[in-house]
């Protein structure tokens, strides 16, 4: 058992933090949000130069062959910088689907473009009626000659508006919430029959509603075995949960540090407010919530490669419970302890709070996962 980063991992951490320190300040981030895509293409090119975009892919396909720990390191840094770029959408989600379901040919063709920064991808999975049920897919894929024809509507696809290609989940067989019968399809975002409505999310990132009407997909753009995609989707969503847990640690740590700093500088009643015990104890509550969340982010990173899917899913559910609860406590208290200044659009803490709140919602909030974990008999065997 060893919690230390390797020499290479430490170098990665340093270089990501340096890049985001130079180019990812809060003021710059707000400027990037006003660019046409809602994020910085120039910064994306720097991610590519650093190797971040090819990180989890196998070397023989043009990646760097890194594992969950490296993703954790990058995501935590992106969380600290409150990054806007489509790393989760392109590398973790769509990239994960390609890694786990793609053919060698598909990987060899797609990975170099992802790693080079020229291909933005998004995962069009959620549907309005589905909430957090990954099996609830009403969008259909109908066989047509060698290819397929997609019809349906996808909601809140992260960075779906700036993606060049979409990975769409669609039902090739079975009823709406059946586990079997789901396939994954690579669709050009500008293909005939695709309509996208992009919008900002409350945390300043971007998403899209996507309508698919008679969209043709060639046979070579089917990802994996059509009809058997759900286990892959679950695995990739679990990888995304582990990544989000790491991102949330960066987000929470900044909120906590900013709050402690404020307690040390803000004076009222002739004293720094950090000298008041009730506020000291609140700051300690935030620290404990952060450390508990950090432990679960480490747990998720370890468990994401667990071969037993049931154990893996439980670990991610537990992680989502902890980061959701810790994030809510830290976010709400960060605002409370800053007082009025915490409420302002101009100050950074509120933006971190909003990102944290969206991270909780993504793939199901704490309460959703607590129910799921309890139904799966919890973590400790009776």
């Amino acid at each position: 058992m060893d919690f230390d980063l390797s020499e290479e991992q430490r170098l990665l951490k340093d270089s990501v933090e340096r890049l985001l320190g130079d180019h990812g300040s809060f003021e710059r981030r707000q400027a990037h949000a006003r660019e046409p895509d809602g994020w910085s293409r120039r910064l994306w090119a720097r991610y590519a130069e650093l190797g971040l975009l090819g990180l989890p892919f196998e070397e023989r396909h043009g990646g760097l062959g890194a594992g969950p720990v490296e993703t954790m390191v990058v995501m935590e840094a992106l969380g600290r910088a409150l990054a806007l770029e489509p790393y989760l959408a392109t590398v973790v989600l769509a990239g994960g689907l390609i890694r786990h379901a793609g053919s060698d040919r598909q990987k060899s063709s797609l990975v170099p473009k992802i790693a080079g920064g020229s291909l933005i991808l998004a995962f069009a999975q959620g549907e309005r009626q589905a909430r957090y049920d990954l099996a609830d897919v009403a969008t259909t894929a109908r066989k047509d000659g060698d290819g397929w024809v997609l019809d349906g509507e996808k909601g809140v696809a992260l960075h779906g508006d700036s993606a060049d290609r979409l990975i769409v989940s669609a039902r090739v067989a079975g009823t709406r919430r059946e586990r079997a019968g789901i396939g994954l399809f690579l669709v050009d975002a500008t293909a005939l029959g695709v309509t996208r409505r992009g919008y900002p999310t409350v945390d300043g990132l971007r998403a899209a509603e996507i309508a698919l009407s008679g969209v043709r997909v060639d046979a070579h753009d089917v990802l994996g075995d059509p009809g058997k995609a759900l286990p892959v989707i679950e695995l990739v969503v679990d990888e995304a949960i582990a990544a989000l847990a790491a991102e949330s640690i960066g987000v929470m740590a900044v909120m906590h540090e900013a709050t402690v700093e404020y307690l040390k500088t803000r004076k009222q009643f002739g004293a720094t407010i950090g000298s008041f015990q009730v506020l000291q104890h609140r700051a300690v509550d935030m620290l404990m919530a952060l450390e508990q969340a950090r432990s679960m982010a480490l747990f998720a990173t370890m468990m994401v490669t667990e071969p037993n899917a049931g154990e893996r899913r439980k670990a991610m559910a537990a992680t989502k419970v902890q980061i959701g609860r810790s994030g809510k406590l830290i976010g709400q208290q960060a605002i409370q302890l800053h007082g009025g200044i915490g409420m302002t659009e101009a100050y950074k803490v509120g933006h971190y709070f909003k990102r944290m709140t969206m991270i909780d919602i993504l793939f199901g909030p704490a309460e959703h996962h607590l129910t799921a974990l309890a139904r799966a008999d919890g973590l400790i065997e009776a």
Partner: protein
Amino acid sequence: MDLRFTPDEIAFRDEVRAFFRSSVPDGVRRKMIDGRHLAKEDFVVWQRLLNARGWAVPHWPVEWGGTGWSPVQQYLFLDEMQQAPAPPPLAFGVNMLGPVLIAFGSEAQKRRFLPRIANIDDWWCQGFSEPGAGSDLASLRTSAKRDGDHYVVNGQKTWTTLAQHADWIFCLVRTDPQAKKQQGISFLLIDMKSKGITVRPIVTIDGSREINEVFFDDVRVPVENLVGEENKGWDYAKFLLGNERVGIARVGVSKERVRRLKQLAALERDGDRPMIEDERFRERIALVEVELKALEITQLRVVAAERSRTDKRPDPASSILKIKGSEIQQAVTELALELVGPYAMPAPQEPDEGSNEPPIGPDWAGSVAPTYFNWRKISIYGGSNEIQKNIIAKAILGL
């Protein structure tokens, strides 16, 4: 970074697990599972079994009977012991006084007391708190005045756990009444058979007799029983309290209690279904399990960091372990209280030895309410959770 245990560590864990499985006396294990108090004899028999195996004082230096285990091995040992469940070696000697003597005691004191601590030939108790000195421990007033080659001790200690069994007590006493609060305190070892000592039990809200008042009335203590230097006792006490927090998260205890809770929730019925199928109840157990998993990893992070620490002072992160650990232990007792339902109400009756009268209600119910009440102590002893938060605010956050 590799968060898995190594094959060697797993082999080690299996070895200690097998030992606990085969060696804890059945009666003792049964009492622990049922949440009943252990008799003095239960502690003594078990600790001597451990000592015979060479495992009573694993964290001590090898020359004094320690095992030389790594921090991870020590963690695994403790975790397995707690999950067995097996009683811990008596903390007052093994975890508190032993390390103080090893660090600050004279050669004669070490030779005289350490082997007897390991084998529980002496039962030690702790004389720190006083009626006027709780969280503000340094305001203690029990005095020790030098008279030739003796100290004469007068005053009162309180909350003294299991003093009724004790052969010896280690005390903080004021040797210089003129000095500032923390100075002027000395660390003294006192034979409980000395003339002038009175032990009076304090019955706690759960009806148990774990704690006592100890009165000192002109008790004569040989000067050779002073530990370290006169008026340096506060430093030794801080060292001791730091050690006390190691392992205070009691993660293994909570794991065992949650496992037991889930077993009982599968048996206890509400209408036509077991309580474990009540969605709300099950979710509340699951929430404790999440917190406990997080705490386990937090504890492992502290353990792993110990390897690279050059600073021998206690890690302030151990205050987090104390707070979260106590909250979780208390949460489990609350869930158990809810689970048992109306049969939490009959006042506990310690079965007489030899009595064949059946218990009132389910046989596991009798200890549930008393444990709920008794375990409120966990967030108070060893530095209350509020004191721990003061420590974290100062030492980690710099507030």
